[in-house]
């Protein structure tokens, strides 16, 4: 008989301490040993994890009103501008924002030592952050200038809201050019000197739900060491199935998530300001998503291993930046993790940018929360678009009226 479980049934088991929870790594062996049906019968929840730089991240802040009040028109936190084209003392601080006057790449490659992501980490560490604001002054908001120091506790709200996180899969970056390049995929040496990839592979949340059968709007997740929720699909959500020129399928490609959560209950060990030489600043974000084993199809999805998952190999020396097609094939995560891949017949060293040990720790922590009965699963209010929706990426054309 086919196995079917509901969210309510699984939550009852979690509450009574009877739920069987495995990480996406542990479940691979169980399925190999017992088969899909038996594994789906035994296991209720599979936990996933990822900890990597995720640039489309940031935090909505509300500072509270000064006396006299002020309609903050321009805002800086430790010298880093935050967007304040919203209500009076609200602002959005983006992870990749740089301080005013940062030398950027003027002294190439720039160091990018501090930015929005680092301010977020400083706030989480309880540090006092310098808040500066200017405004034009109105009858209701007379103040035109302020400078003060503020902590996370002093604010009314600090809501982490990341428009594009948790990429389903990501490129493996290489460099075909003859000079060293500095990218968001790290330092890539000339003439295929090295390769960088950035995914937890078999532990990665969206690689374990390739068809978006369970993860949707409202899914409760591990976010930044605390609790968060899936708010929507992420920007650039292209959940297609990647194929090579001959039409062979290489598994899921580019789904993304938009996630939200209260920054005040997150933890500075799990949201880290990050600097990429010659590229810029960002935030390393930790995300763990529980997947309810509703049926055998879900179990089949979560049992994938690094051998079954592939990253497209992309040339960042020219093809990526110039938006040219790149046909360097695919590398499986098993090959990538072995430390050597073959590109154009050449063996090259491969290194990760995404911490697999931390991904494992996130999946294990989430498992522990669920086993203790502290963390119940939420049924999505709305599922996200999948490959069936045939979403195509749109390109920006440069043209006149």
């Amino acid at each position: 008989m086919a196995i079917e479980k509901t969210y309510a049934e699984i939550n009852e088991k979690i509450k009574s301490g009877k739920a069987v929870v495995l990480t996406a790594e542990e479940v691979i062996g169980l399925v190999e040993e017992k088969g899909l049906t038996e594994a789906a019968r035994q296991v209720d929840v599979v936990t996933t994890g990822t900890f990597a730089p995720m640039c489309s991240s940031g935090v909505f802040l509300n500072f509270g009103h000064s006396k006299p009040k002020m309609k903050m028109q321009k805002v800086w936190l430790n010298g880093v501008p935050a967007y304040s084209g919203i209500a009076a003392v609200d602002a959005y601080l983006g992870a990749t924002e740089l301080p005013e006057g940062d030398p950027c790449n003027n002294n190439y490659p720039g160091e990018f030592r501090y930015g929005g992501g680092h301010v977020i980490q400083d706030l989480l560490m309880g540090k006092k952050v310098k808040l500066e604001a200017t405004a034009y002054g109105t009858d209701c908001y007379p103040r035109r200038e302020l400078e003060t120091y503020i902590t996370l506790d002093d604010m009314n709200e600090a809501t982490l809201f990341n428009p594009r996180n948790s990429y389903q899969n990501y490129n493996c970056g290489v460099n075909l050019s003859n000079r060293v390049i500095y990218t968001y995929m790290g330092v890539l040496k000339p003439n295929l000197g090295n390769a960088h990839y950035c995914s937890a592979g078999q532990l990665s949340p969206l690689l374990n739900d390739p068809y978006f059968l369970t993860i949707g709007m409202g899914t409760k997740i591990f976010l930044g060491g605390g609790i968060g929720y899936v708010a929507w699909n992420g920007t650039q959500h292209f959940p297609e199935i990647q194929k090579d020129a001959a039409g062979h399928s290489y598994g899921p490609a580019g789904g993304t998530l938009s996630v939200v959560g209260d920054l005040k209950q997150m933890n500075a060990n799990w949201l880290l300001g990050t600097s990429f030489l010659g590229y810029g600043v960002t935030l390393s974000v930790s995300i763990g998503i529980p997947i309810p084993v509703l049926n055998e199809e879900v179990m089949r999805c979560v049992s994938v291993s690094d051998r079954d998952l592939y990253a497209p190999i992309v040339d960042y020396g020219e093809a990526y930046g110039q938006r040219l097609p790149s046909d360097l094939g695919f590398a499986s995560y098993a090959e990538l993790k072995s430390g050597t891949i073959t590109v154009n017949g050449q063996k090259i060293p491969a290194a990760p940018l995404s911490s697999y040990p931390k991904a494992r720790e996130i999946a294990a922590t989430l498992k522990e929360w669920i086993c203790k009965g502290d963390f119940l699963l939420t049924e999505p209010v709305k599922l996200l678009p999948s490959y069936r929706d045939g979403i195509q990426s749109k390109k920006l054309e440069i043209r006149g009226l």
Partner: protein
Amino acid sequence: MAPNKIILRFGENTSDQPIIYRLVKDYDLVINILKANVNPNKEGTMVLELTGEKYEEGLGYLRDQGIRVQPLAEEVFRNEERCISCGACTGICPTHALSLERPSMEVKFDSDNCIVCQLCVKVCPLKAMEVRF
């Protein structure tokens, strides 16, 4: 006489003179090669202990060959609290002093193999690699 620890850095175009031979023969220096990472037509490094009367002259000769000479007073270490084992440094470290352990995928730092090139200090996205003087 105490030996001097120094690092030699070779550019891609450093002449292919037999420098060690010359240091011994022409400058009468006692040489202990601690680490070497030299490949033809590539940038390379060598860590040496040098002892002898004509030490300064020997260094002058090395500089004339286009080799950068640096005293080994600095040390690179890893701030364990900051490192998240992302791996970004492992493809950049020329001596594999920073390397991935498999299958755990933890990044290990073996300071014995470090030649203090400081590439990791620039590259580490979490600023976990630090220089100590």
